[in-house]
């Protein structure tokens, strides 16, 4: 699957490429508006990551042109501004998602996966990991075809880790994914450990393999 990253900050785009390549995405880089436009016109991508503030133009303009050309790429807007107006305008112009800087690469990866699933599989999305099945539409988990009762948080947690399979996802990234901006209200990561413990217990009881591994207290990894 091909991804175009339109981002003028090279170090940032290199990190993104590095992380995404391990997910078997093929990544192209464009450092400015002009290069981005050329690449979008010349190739077909599954997903375009679009920085709003480019040195020679606005990413929103590029998004407009892309949609005018009838391109079907999934677009995730990346902005340093985190302003509601940009978000609304971007989504109105047809962007599939919006991510404000600084973001966790694991979060980015999960969002890309979601966008591609929506675009390519028309939402008919069921993730299967051996005996474990995640139904993204119904938001249900099946272990050996038997439904498993999980809370919303536990489901999100599992999906987030599964979207970054075989990668270490940091505690901070998980906390932010679970609680959004309110993660800081917890004195520590106890809430995360509590959810994690419950999730793992439920999966084990249902007869699922223990795919989720703690990595030295630094984060968790969904290993296959």
């Amino acid at each position, binding site marked *: 699957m091909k991804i175009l990253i339109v981002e003028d900050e090279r170090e940032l785009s290199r990190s993104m490429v590095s992380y995404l390549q391990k997910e078997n995405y093929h990544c192209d880089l464009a450092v400015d508006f002009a290069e981005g436009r050329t690449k979008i016109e010349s190739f077909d991508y599954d997903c375009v990551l679009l920085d709003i503030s480019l040195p020679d133009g606005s990413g929103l303009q590029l998004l407009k042109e892309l949609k005018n050309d009838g391109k079907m790429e999934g677009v995730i807007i990346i902005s340093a501004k985190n302003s509601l107006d940009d978000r609304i305008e971007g989504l109105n112009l047809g962007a599939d998602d919006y991510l404000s800087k600084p973001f966790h690469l694991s979060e980015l990866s999960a969002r890309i996966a979601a966008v591609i699933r929506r675009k390519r599989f028309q939402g008919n999305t069921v993730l299967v990991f051996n005996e474990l099945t995640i139904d993204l539409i119904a938001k249900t988990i099946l272990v050996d075809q038997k439904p498993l009762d999980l809370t919303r948080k536990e489901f999100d947690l599992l999906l987030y880790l599964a979207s970054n399979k075989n990668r270490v996802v940091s505690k901070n990234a998980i906390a932010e994914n679970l609680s959004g901006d309110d993660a800081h*209200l917890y004195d520590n990561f106890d809430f995360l450990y509590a959810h994690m413990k419950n999730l793992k217990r439920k999966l084990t009881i249902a007869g699922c393999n223990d795919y989720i591994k703690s990595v030295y207290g630094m984060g968790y990894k969904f290993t296959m």
Partner: protein
Amino acid sequence: MKLLRKTVRGYLIYSVFILLIAIPAFYLTFQQVLQHETDEELMATKIYMRPKLEKAISDSAAFHFLDDYMSVAPATGNLKGDSLYTVDIFDTIEKDIIPFRFIRSTIDLKGKPYVITRRISLLEKEDLIKTILIFQIILLILLLGGLFVINRRLSLKIWRPFYLIMDKLHNYRVETQRTLKLPSTGITEFNDLKNSLENLAERSHQTFISQKEFTENASHEMQTPLAIMRGKLELLMQTSPLNEEQANLIDELADAGQRMMRLNKSLILLTKIENNQFQDQETVDLKNIVENFIYKQYTSQLEQKRIIISADLKSNIQLHANRMLIEILVSNLLGNAIRHNNEGGSIYIIIGNNLLTVKNNGRTTELDTNKIFTRFQKDGTDANSLGLGLEIARKICDLYHYQFLYSFTEGFHQFTVQFSHAND
């Protein structure tokens, strides 16, 4: 004391002083002058009467030309020279005591000494003095009164630009107004003052702007390196082999990075509030927002700390404000109440009377009211606290002219927002 009253008071005291001195002085002087005149007239009697008297004596005629006011008699004893004196006599016609000026002089008429006594009523002269005096007093009062009024009005007029300038200065806000527009006056001193103040305001504003821009730019520019750092750390986490020591170091770095990012985000938010970048306003239902936080967003945090929350939301407040800012305000207040609370503590939330009150347990000592609303004042033990939450809340209150108050009673820290123009 007002400047105007002070100057006018000086004039007033001087005027009264002058009046008090001038009127008796005038009276006494004038009386002296008139008495002197009378005395001279009396003295003249001796000279102009002598031929008449001598003629009458030589004719052995009676002094028929004499009247009540003059008498001539042969001198007895050895009276000599002239004597002048004043005597009050009861006048039967006027039916009043009238002062008379007397002269008694001894003169030789045909070798024989005679005593001439003559008197002049001082009544007319006294009346004259009185009339003049009254005129004088009226004149003086009119003069001084007029001066006083004119001076007061002139002062008012002269100081008017000063009061205008004062008024403008009073309403000047360095955050919002680029220039201070002061009225032009024809007076050099005030024009100097005006120019100096305008320059001062201009420079203050420039300083304010550049400081604000610094915070703004610094925060924005920091975002990219922070994003890069976070990305690289996540890549570093994926490397193998990775031992525990390395993992711990990465973990600590990630935590520090996380704090830095939150700090940066809060600073950007503060700057945006200061720049008034939240322009959209709508009717915001306060109760709705509070309920959303305590029954949805913060439930797991409350559960984790086993905090009991009691909300008195019977009366509601509709605010006309930016929804996001009100949400931030409420979330900061509640967030603080949760974060600084004890395990198993309690929180009270009350809406009513145009007030939103959040009370919570926590530290058993009162917070320093001078410090809590300033940046980076935080509970030293809590690494998760940035020390910007209350500052953000206060800035939001400032923006909408809400009052933001803190008090400590019966072991509860209480933060209150008083909404100024809300409909209860």
